[in-house]
Every structure is written in C-alpha cells, then in structure tokens.
C-alpha cells in the first residue's frame, strides 16, 4: 500500500517485553484515514498490569492508536489498516472475534466526560445490562463495587438515582471510569482523561490510575509530561505516526536517547 511509506528517521531504543508479560502486541500496524496516513508501521508491546503512557505532539496519532485497540475504527469506512494487533495472544481482527466482547475486554475512557443522560446508577449498570445481568442484588453489588473502585462511591451513594449530568466534570469522568470498570475489562485505555479537569480532579484521577494497575493494564495518552512521569511505568513517544522512542518512564524522561524526544519533553518543539 503506497500510503504507508516507512520513514527513514533514526529510531531510538525500543524496549521489548516477553509475550508472556504483555497484554497487547502490535506488529507492523499502519493506518490511514483515506489517503492520509496516521500510523506508520508501529511495532510495540504493552506490558500487563502496568501503566503505559503514549506521548507526542498533537496529531501524531495517539488517539488513532488507542482506538485501534478496541476497533472503534470499524465504524469509519474510510479507515485503511494493515498489520496486526493481538490481545493476550489473539488477533483482534480474526473473524471469530466478536467486536462487542473485544470492546468489553478493552475499556476506553475519552477526553470529554461522556456519561449517558440517565441516572448515576443506570450509567454504571449500562454495560452490565448489555451482558444480560438482570438480577437486582448482583447489580447493586457490582455498581457499588465499580463506584468504589473509581473512588466515587462516597460522593454519590445518596443520589444514585439522580441524573449523571448533574455531577461535576471530575465526578463525571470518574463515573465513566466506574462504568467501564463495571464490566471487568482487562485493558483500560485512557485518552487524555484529565485534560478537561481541574487540578484536584486531575490528582484524583491520577491516584485512581495508580490504584488500578494492580488489577488491569492501563494505557494513558497525555499531553502533560509531569503526569506521564508521575503515573506511568513505561512511556512511548510518537511523532507523525511513528514510534520514536519507548522505554521505562524514568529513563525516557531523564536520559532520552534521541534529540527529537528530548526536544519534545523539554518543550523545545522543532
């Protein structure tokens, strides 16, 4: 495919994980919107039960990559893709894979909080009802569990039946995380989850991310370098749809190997 021209730019060191340690495995993934390439020949592995941050300038393809993980691109007819993505060793584009089930296993939280126009309780129960869970007690327990996991329970337990749209932005975002956690995903994709929030809410979300990694693998997209440094274990730097550098967060931020990476994290954009 002519749109996937591989660039000859120098590559920084790319960390690799054993297949047994990784939840997601991306092999030679390229993706284009029509004839506009967005990802070029990406190969990387995302470790299990860790926080992996994707950083890079605006428009470099971070969101595009995230949306490839749960096949949200399926809806867009002009998207062209080649290369494979494996979740726990299985190709997510294999014909026997059910998209709905894949999306349950790979949860996603978007930049703008998007609670549904229903009560707090119904928002959290939404995914469970899709799974066919109808028993009242079970549901109540799961909703409480999910809200506790998202550190929201104490704030909303007395108004579960009120509209989710009455919550503050930070609470809404945690509600969306609770909603996603309720269906027990294995991977949680967070696309700039705190960029629309105030500092306190941001802190709460970051704390939450730290607590969650004991349970599942997290992928975080952020423009906030401090945030990436604070919460992630590994960081990947993307530029113009290419993976430039990928390593342990500590190393990448203190001793980046490539000038491109250093320029970006120190704010000297080229």
């Amino acid at each position, binding site marked *: 495919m002519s749109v996937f021209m591989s660039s000859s730019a120098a590559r920084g060191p790319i960390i690799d994980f054993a297949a047994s340690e990784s939840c997601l495995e991306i092999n030679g993934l390229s993706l284009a919107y029509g004839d506009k390439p967005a990802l070029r020949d990406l190969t990387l592995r995302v470790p299990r039960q860790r926080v992996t941050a994707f950083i890079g300038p605006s428009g470099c393809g971070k969101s595009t990559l995230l949306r490839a993980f749960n096949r*949200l691109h399926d809806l867009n007819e002009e998207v062209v893709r080649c290369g494979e993505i494996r979740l726990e060793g299985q190709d997510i584009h294999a014909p026997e894979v059910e998209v709905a089930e894949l999306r*349950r296993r790979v949860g996603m939280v978007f930049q703008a909080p998007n609670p*549904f126009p229903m009560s707090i309780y119904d928002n959290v129960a939404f995914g469970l009802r899709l799974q066919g869970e109808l028993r009242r007690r079970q549901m109540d327990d799961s909703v409480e569990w999910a809200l506790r996991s998202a550190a929201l329970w104490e704030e909303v337990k007395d108004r579960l039946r009120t509209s989710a*749209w009455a919550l503050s932005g930070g609470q809404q975002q945690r509600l969306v995380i609770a909603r996603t956690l309720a*269906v027990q995903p294995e991977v949680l994709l967070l696309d700039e989850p705190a960029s629309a929030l105030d500092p306190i809410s941001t802190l709460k979300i970051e704390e939450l991310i730290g607590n969650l990694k004991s349970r599942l693998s997290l992928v975080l997209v952020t423009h906030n370098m401090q945030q990436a440094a604070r919460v992630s274990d590994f960081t990947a730097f993307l530029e113009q749809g290419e993976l430039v550098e990928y390593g342990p967060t500590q190393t990448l931020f203190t001793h980046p190997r490539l000038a491109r990476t250093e320029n970006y994290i120190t704010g000297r954009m080229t």
Partner: protein
Amino acid sequence: MRRTWRRHGEGPWPWLAAGSVALSLLMLLALLLLLATRGLGHFWPAEVAVVTPHAGSPFAGIAVREEAIPGDTRRERLYFTANRDLEGGRWRWVELGEIARIDYPAELVMMERSRWGDLVGRLVALEGEGESHVGEAAWPALQARLRALERLRDERDRLRDEVVMPLVRRLETVDSDEVRAALAAANGRIRELQATMGGATLIVESADGRRVEQPLEKVLRAWRPNAMTLLDRVVAWGEGVWRFLSEGPRAANSAGGVWPAIFGTMLMVLLMSLVVTPFGVLAAIYLNEVAHQGALTRIVRIGVRNLAGVPSIVFGVFGLGLFVHGIGGSLDEWFFSERLPSPTFGTGGLLWASLTLALLTLPVVIVATEEGLARVPDHQREGALALGATRMEMLTRVVLPMTLPAMLTGMILAVARAAGEVAPLMLVGVAKLASRVPVDGDFPFLHLERKFMHLGYHIYDTALHGDDVQAAMPLAFATALLLVLVILLLNLTAIFLRHHLRLRHEVPSRV
C-alpha cells in the same frame, strides 16, 4: 458581539428586525381578534330593535354594521331581520336619515327554528291540545312547552340511534321476524313521540303587524333579547358556544354545531400520526444511522426534504389514484364483491385520507427525527460502543432516548400540518355532511371506510356553499377560530412535551 451592536444602535437593522417582529405579532393578533369577534359574537344574544322608518312599515332587526353610501355623505345601516319566510330575505339596509324612531320592546321574542332560520316578533298566543294561552301568559307557557319538547326530541333521537339503527343493520344480515317485530315496535314508539310533539301552534305578530302561524315542533329555542340581564346574556352565550361545540350541523351546514367535524378532524389526525410516526422515525434512523453516507443517501435526503414542498393537492391526486382507486378498488373486488357496484373501500374514506396525509407529513417527521439524531454527540455513541454495545443496542439504549424530544416535535408538527390541510382531503374522503360518524357501537366500532367531516372543509363549505352565506359567515369564523385553537393546542403540547422530556434527560439547551 450582538449586545454592543445593539447598544450603539448602528444603522437601521435593529429597528428593521424589531419592526418586522412587531408587525408579524400584530398581524397574528389581528387575525385572532377578527376570528374571535366575528365568530364568537355570533353567539351573543344581541338586542333587537324595532325600526320605524319615515315611509313604510316598521320592521324588527339586529343592527350589524354601518357603512357610508358610496359617493354620498349619508350612511346606511345593515339590519339582520330574520323572518325569512315573511320577508323573503334576512337582511335590510336602511339609510340613517330615513329612520323615524327605534324602540327596544321588552316583549319581543326571538326564536330559533329548525327550518327558515330565526323568527322574531310579538307573541300573540300559544294554542293547541285544547288550551290556549293568550298575551303575557303565552311566554311562560311557551318556555314550559319548549322544555317538554326538548325532552321528547332527545328521547326520539336516542330511540333512533340506539334502537332503530342497530335493528336496521341487523336486518341487513339476518332477516328474522323477531327483529322485524322489534323494529316495528320502535318505529311505532317514534311515531307516537312525533305525534305528541306536534299539534301546538304559535301565533306570532311581526313588527309590521302581520300574523304568522308557527308550528311549535319546529321551534328549537325562544328568548326575549331585550328583556335579558347581562348575566342572562352571558349564560345564553355560553350555552350557544357549547351547542356549537357539541352538536351536529343543521340546515346544510349553515346552522348548528361542528362536533362531527371536530371529531372527524381529531380521529383522522390520530390515525395519521399512528401511521406517520413509526414510518418517519424508521426512515430517519435508516438514513442517518444505517445507510452508507454516500451520494445515494444524500440524494434521497434531498428528495425527502423537497417532498415537503410539493403542493398538498398533488398528494391528494396521488392518494386518489393509489389508495382509493388502486388499493381500495382491489380490496372491494376481493373482499366486498357482494356490495358492488356500490364501493366500500373503493371510494374516499377515513383510512385513505389518513394515509394520504401521512404521506404528506412524512418529510416533516423524517427531517425532525434526523435533526434529533444528528444532534446526539458522537462521544455518546462511542461511549456506548466502547462498553460493548452492538450498534443496535447503542441505538435503542442511548441514541433513541436522546432523540425522543425531536421525534415528538416531528410528530406534533406533522399533526399541526395535517389538521389544517383541506385540499387533498376533498379528493380522498372528506364529506360535506357525514350521516354516520366513523366510530359507533357497531362492530368493528371503527369504520375506516366511512367518509368523515373535517373542520377545514366545514369552513369552506359554510363560507361558500350555503344559500345565505352572510348568515353563515359567523359560523365559518367560529370554526376557523376553533381550528386555530386546536392547532395552537397541539403546538403548545409539543413545546410542553419537549420541555418536559428535556428536563427529564437534562439535555442542556445548547443541544
């Protein structure tokens, strides 16, 4: 931005804009005012003057309006004189200078009759059944007799509608002696009632001294317009309005009420919305959510939008060809061949009218629903999909509930449009006078093949087709007012529902 513009008052644009809004509102108010005064004034029991001209005999009448005589300084006044059987007409112009005196005698009686319209004059006597009330005693006797007559009429109508008509229809299917006997008995009872009603006669003297013998059974109501207090008048006005709303038309739609037309309009609109809403919503969902968003979909969308601009009579012709002649004709051949050549579905009727209007209003529902669907933010859809919802689940659980206000808006707009539509109905099923309403106690209770009456068509018929259009005009105005009110009510319901649903879903008003 706009505020600074307004504050500095730059240029004439703010004034022009405000002026045109004010003008539109004013015209709307003027329209309502005209309809209200001309329509509702008709039910007011106005005073009746006895006018004595310098030359000629006096006459009684209600002053209607005054006009300047063209090319002259004099003015003339129009009187409604009633007494069509005596005068030949019911209207009379008099030049003001010709009037010698005007009196308002309290004992003047006005009567509404089932034939010949109103009668006005002095009551001389009430005779019949061996007794005779003369002079002042005639008025209380007349009132008592009219009340008795009213009861007899109700009894007769009830017998006819609830006993005789069902028996007649039973006879169409089973021909048993038992039914015949029951029918004969009921008819006998009706004849008895009829006989009791007849017999009495009123002697009335008109203002110029002529005497009329008026059979009492033809008199519906009588009042003494010059002896009424304000309260009496208000009560009489309220009763008049109520009769207008609750009774059927009389005298070829030039008198009486409009209840069958209200009922027909509502029923037709109800059936139409039952058809158009699901079809329109499904079509919108298909266009917006399912179909590939390519050139073809765009063309279809443009087509649908333009369909809204097709003149309604064209839909009428289409409905006549497709529904009435095409489908209706075939239905008659297959299922109602025993009744041919008199058509059952092969002629205009409630069903075909509803379907035609459903077709007419389909674009309204589609466009409104599509707009609602387009307003659902993409991140809501993605949120549902990301939780493992299929596209169907996303639609039914997130998108459609958020689109509900838009769908309702579309439906109500369709209803409002359909309620006022007349032209296509003339082709597919409206009737000047429907002898039987489309809903009755007869199986299957709802008769889709029957013709029905409609407020819009009733206006047209009342205003143009009576033998005394001037007398019927107030009724046309009142009917028009009613139609406007019905449509206003529907629109207000829409606004209320939308607001209510929006609160429930707390969709911010920017959406």
